[in-house]
């Protein structure tokens, strides 16, 4: 049984992701976000349910749709927002942006925007753990689209044969950009692919944070005990389009409505009301508090300077000046 305090913290984190993403969307509409955005709205239960099983020194790898992973792993809202807005005070000093946020101080090994590329990298972090002899664990987030990349096969096979401490978390939101899973895969469950590597594969309701928590708890424990990887498939749905301009017209209205009814935050809230550890007033208070911290993060980001243009030439190599030095 999960402790009450932990349940409330998970709920709070899901709200934080939701309001953070809504703010990003709002800022985007005001032309304050350069480039593009891929919002995590609707998928909060996955990142939060998985990361609730992780320690600070555990690792995660993330994707182009990564804001939720960062927040669930404990990243600061202000530095995250500043990075999304391209500011000097952002996690990556404005060099990464929305698709490349990293915070190595909390084991967030960064988001890669190449679909599937994080899978072998997570395997490498797992190998590093094994060689260093610690009991850390890696959670590797990716979408169902990534499971069609060669890196999925190569990375999971190798992780399995070397019995590395990695939990592969497939966020199956049914669509790879605009391509519905059934158009590009002859199977329904990505987790079935686990059989090909001789590892456990489980399917969970990715909009039920407790189901995600429980499945990943088992997977994390297994990994921590040196028993190898697990593939956890979380069935979920993005409530927004793929990226900035995508109205997601390729999705049937009924389907969207069906999934909106399964909103992970509303469901969890109902559950917490039922077991009597959360009240409407407490929700209001929590919402106020979260909105305040999102607003503060936004203020911090908006008041932060952009990087100096010459900073574009830094951080290419460990040595200052790098390759062009001579």
């Amino acid at each position: 049984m999960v402790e009450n305090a932990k349940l409330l913290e998970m709920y709070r984190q899901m709200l934080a992701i939701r309001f953070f993403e809504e703010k990003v969307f709002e800022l985007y509409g005001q032309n304050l976000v350069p480039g593009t955005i891929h919002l995590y709205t609707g998928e909060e239960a996955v990142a939060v349910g998985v990361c609730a099983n992780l320690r600070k020194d555990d690792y995660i790898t993330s994707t182009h749709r990564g804001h939720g992973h960062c927040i669930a792993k404990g990243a600061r809202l202000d530095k995250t927002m500043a990075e999304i807005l391209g500011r000097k005070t952002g996690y990556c000093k404005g060099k990464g942006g929305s698709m490349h946020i990293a915070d190595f101080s909390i084991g967030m090994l960064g988001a890669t925007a190449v679909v599937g590329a994080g899978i072998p990298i997570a395997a490498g972090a797992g190998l590093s753990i094994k060689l260093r002899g610690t009991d850390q664990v890696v959670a590797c987030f990716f979408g169902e689209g990534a499971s069609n990349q060669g890196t999925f096969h190569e990375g999971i096979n190798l992780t399995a044969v070397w019995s590395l401490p990695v939990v592969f978390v497939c966020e199956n939101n049914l669509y790879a950009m605009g391509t519905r899973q059934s158009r590009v895969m002859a199977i329904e469950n990505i987790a079935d692919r686990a059989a090909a590597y001789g590892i456990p594969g489980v399917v969970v309701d990715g909009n039920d944070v407790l189901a995600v928590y429980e499945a990943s708890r088992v997977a994390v424990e297994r990994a921590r005990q040196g028993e190898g990887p697990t593939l956890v498939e979380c069935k979920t749905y993005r409530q927004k389009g793929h990226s900035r301009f995508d109205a997601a017209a390729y999705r049937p209205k009924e389907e969207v409505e069906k999934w909106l009814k399964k909103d992970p935050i509303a469901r969890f809230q109902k559950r917490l009301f039922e077991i009597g550890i959360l009240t409407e007033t407490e929700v209001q208070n929590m919402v106020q508090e979260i909105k305040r911290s999102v607003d503060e993060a936004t203020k911090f980001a908006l008041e932060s300077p952009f990087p100096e243009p010459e900073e574009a030439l830094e951080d290419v190599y460990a040595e200052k000046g790098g390759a062009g030095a001579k």
Partner: protein
Amino acid sequence: MREVTVRDALREALREEMQRDKNVFLLGEDIGRYWGGAFGVTKGLAEEFGDDRVRDTPISESAIIGVGVGAAMTGMRPIAEIMFGDLSALAMDQICNQAAKIRYMFGGQARAPLVVRTPFGAGVNIASHHSQSLEAWFMHTPGLYVAAPSTPYDAKGLLKTAIRGNNPVFFVEHKLLYPVRGMIPDEEYTIPFGVADVKREGSDISIVATLYMVHKALVAAEQLSKEGISVEVVDPRTLVPLDKQAIVKSVKKTGRLVVVSEDCRTAGVSAEVAAIVVEEALDYLDAPIKRVAEPDTPIPFSPELEKHVIPDEKSIVKAVKETVSKF
């Protein structure tokens, strides 16, 4: 001093660095106790350091490099071997989009001290998928260093520097160089990146050559000296960073330049070297620069065809004579 082969020199560097730092480990296809690497570079290391630190992998180039990247980001110093350089194409995303960019796109908070060792080069009749020289691909990727040693001394010293550094290094070996012999000191040494070596001093013309072409250039230089032409041979040793100063200095001295590289002519190593000299020493040139390079074809199989496209001593001599004859 003692005489060793390039293969031995590389192995010594690996062994010494593995002894020095427990975070250094090797991974690659058939590098372990059953084979010791396709070219025998890692022979004996699994026996000495164990299978955990000399890891045979599945045939999964993308995962080999990806695992190297993930391990490097979390405190290890992996050395990945790609059996043939041509196969680095299979790991291109992990090398060029991941390893090379991790420091930069994460704002300097991460590092990926990964060494990717791989042999390039033609000369053993194994055709288009095992003979190319693709080093320019990696020169074109900011964030990577590219080492290209031509002697046992350079191979050992540069590999040790690559392993100890905090950048991803694409370490180019040439398959014809593995048995080439040379002297190395008994004591510990490293060679800094970005420092060219003048392999032969001369006054009439400079040849900038890389990898196996250094040896062909030296043979050509010896022959030309008998005809009264004094050739200087400059070996950059690392292509990134490239020792522009040394190249420019040599050209300012001789006033003439031939660039010899086994990779394709177009947008290749020879093009880069020529461009640098045009930018920085045009006024010192007494004749147009000549390039001796692969003529933009895949590498053919049949020995006569292969010989035709790979620069040799004869083509170097010819280029030098044409350059020297111009006033």
